[in-house]
């Protein structure tokens, strides 16, 4: 026979455990509401300026080609912001559902700098480079797609340099050379072969 006081104590402990479980469950539910699902894609801020028709050069893995794709996006007047918006639109395609050339989740262009006249420096984030699929053609499609999209829509871009997290990097994912400056004329000629 279990003494009565032990039965009462056991009952209180059981209620306490159930109560704690309910409380923890609520807290976790609130935390999940506060932190949305892990989607680290960049959040596009509203871009001022009128909507303009632009040409994006979109890589397509199926045929290993680049396709010129018309798009209407709001573009600011400043060249630097225009470059950023163009790349944002391009990456939205690559990061979207049914992407023709998927990039790693969290891939982002951190910033675009227009340095010397004609020189553009594109700073990619670590997720972009570290998560990029390795392969000569896969990497080449990414690099040429970005360069040609900028060169086709922003006049007077002559050279493009890539950084990753603000630093130089030898290759994108083991193949495409990032140590050099890309000549947009040479890339345009290459893109003509890739269409």
């Amino acid at each position, binding site marked *: 026979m279990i003494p009565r006081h032990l039965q009462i104590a056991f009952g209180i402990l059981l209620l306490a455990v159930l109560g704690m479980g309910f409380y923890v469950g609520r807290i976790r539910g609130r935390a999940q509401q506060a932190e949305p699902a892990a989607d680290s894609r960049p959040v596009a801020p509203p871009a001022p300026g009128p909507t303009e028709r632009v040409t994006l050069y979109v890589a397509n893995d199926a045929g290993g080609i680049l396709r010129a794709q018309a798009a209407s996006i709001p573009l600011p007047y400043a060249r630097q912001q225009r470059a950023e918006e163009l790349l944002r639109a391009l990456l939205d395609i690559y990061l979207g559902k049914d992407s023709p050339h998927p990039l790693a989740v969290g891939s982002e262009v951190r910033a675009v700098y227009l340095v010397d006249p004609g020189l553009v420096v594109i700073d990619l984030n670590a997720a972009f480079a570290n998560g990029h699929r390795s392969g000569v*053609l896969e990497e080449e499609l990414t690099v040429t797609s970005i360069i040609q999209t900028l060169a086709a829509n922003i006049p007077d871009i002559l050279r493009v340099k890539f950084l990753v997290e603000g630093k130089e990097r030898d290759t994108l994912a083991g193949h495409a050379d990032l140590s050099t400056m890309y*000549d947009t004329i040479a890339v345009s000629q290459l893109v003509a072969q890739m269409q």
Partner: protein
Amino acid sequence: MGFSRSNAFRRLRLWARSRTATRVLALVLTIAIVPLHSADEKHIVIYAPGTTFSLPVTDRDGREYVGLLESVEPLGTVSARVDGTHWKLRYNDGESDFTASRNRARVRGHDMDFPGNFLLENNRGLVPLVSLGTLLPRILNASVSFNPVSRRLFVGNVATHFTAQLSKTTPPRLLMNFTAPVNPTIATEPGRLRMSFTREPLVAPGTPTLTFDDKSIPSATYLENNGVAEITVNGGTPLMASFSNDGRTITIAPVPQQPPGPPQAPAPAQNLPSAAVPGNAPKAVPANATHYYAVIDPSHGGDDRGVALSDSLAEKDITLSLARRLRQEFESRGIPTLVLRDSDVNVPLDERAAQTNTAHPTIYVALHAASDGKGVRLYTALLPSGVENNGPFVAWDTAQTRLLPTSKAAAQNVAAEFQRRQLPVRTLQAPLRPLNNLTTAAIAVEVAPASGDVADLTQPAYQQNVASGIATAIASMHNQLGGAP
């Protein structure tokens, strides 16, 4: 993607610092570097810790002017606004107020006079060039040294000094030691070797003319003009420069005379000077070494696995397997072949290029493997347009320029052979190192599965077919490549 202007330039400065010494060494032996500006236009060059930049100088009423905002923009957080006839500049925490057509400004609470009027053109503030020497120390709150004649301005303690000492060895050598790595453009002409320093904050030695008691290298002169410092070494014989000590030492010496020997008919690639190797000294090829007609480069190796073709299959293993088969195919056709790695080791890209250039082969074949697509993709170097390697040195990054047509012909020939074998094939240019660093005809072969199944890549029959196709095509064009196997 948001960022502040100051952050942007901080990142760029970090980028500039992070450029490795090997890159510097590679570029110093080039005659084609990215110029800061055209030689015909007037420019001022501003050297500051972590950055060097050039600005155009414009003439107004017979006086030289420069944009003030542009002069300080790369150095800190800057903004400017127009308020009527006033142009207000904010640099970091300091305010400056300029008035159009006036030669007085208020900078950080102090009135300052300068020679010539301030000009306001399309909301852009222009100041007389000579006034930078007095305005910038106050605006930047830093020490500034300015030479308006040569249009070179130094912010803070950034100067690079040098010494020159003649070593009376045989042959004599002029040792020039710099306090920081340098990367001059080098040009040679009869009787002199000229080094132009466009980005380095080089400052004059004690005397502009240095004399040495030697017939081969009698003197050197220093001069600076339009933002460029220049050292000219005068020589009684043709001179050459070599670099060491991470770009801090330049050694000038007479060009060695070729020893007499039996005449040879070298392949076109052999007529080119070897591109210098950044960082790694090229491995010397003994005088009696075999002349390799072909160099095979199995890409990746060691901790660089390349593409993960499957859970257990790495690109580096397929390329090595293909390389061994290709060597066998070449050698069965009497083609002496060098394989750059014959085991699972990591060979840096620069070293691969160095070994190839030093071996002076007629053709270089890099091997890659891919899981995507079908068949074979052939690549030649993607090079900047309009680059020419004229002169005694070859630019490391564009060493392939002169050989590119031959490389493309080789790629086309290999593609034709694969088509005959009914293998899907595609030719492209690609930004794929070390193709652009090579002074020989160079192609890269990326082998994808024949049917789309990655397992194809490990099939001996498929590998043999690919290797045989490459070897057959290369062997068939030895006349076009210019060397006999």
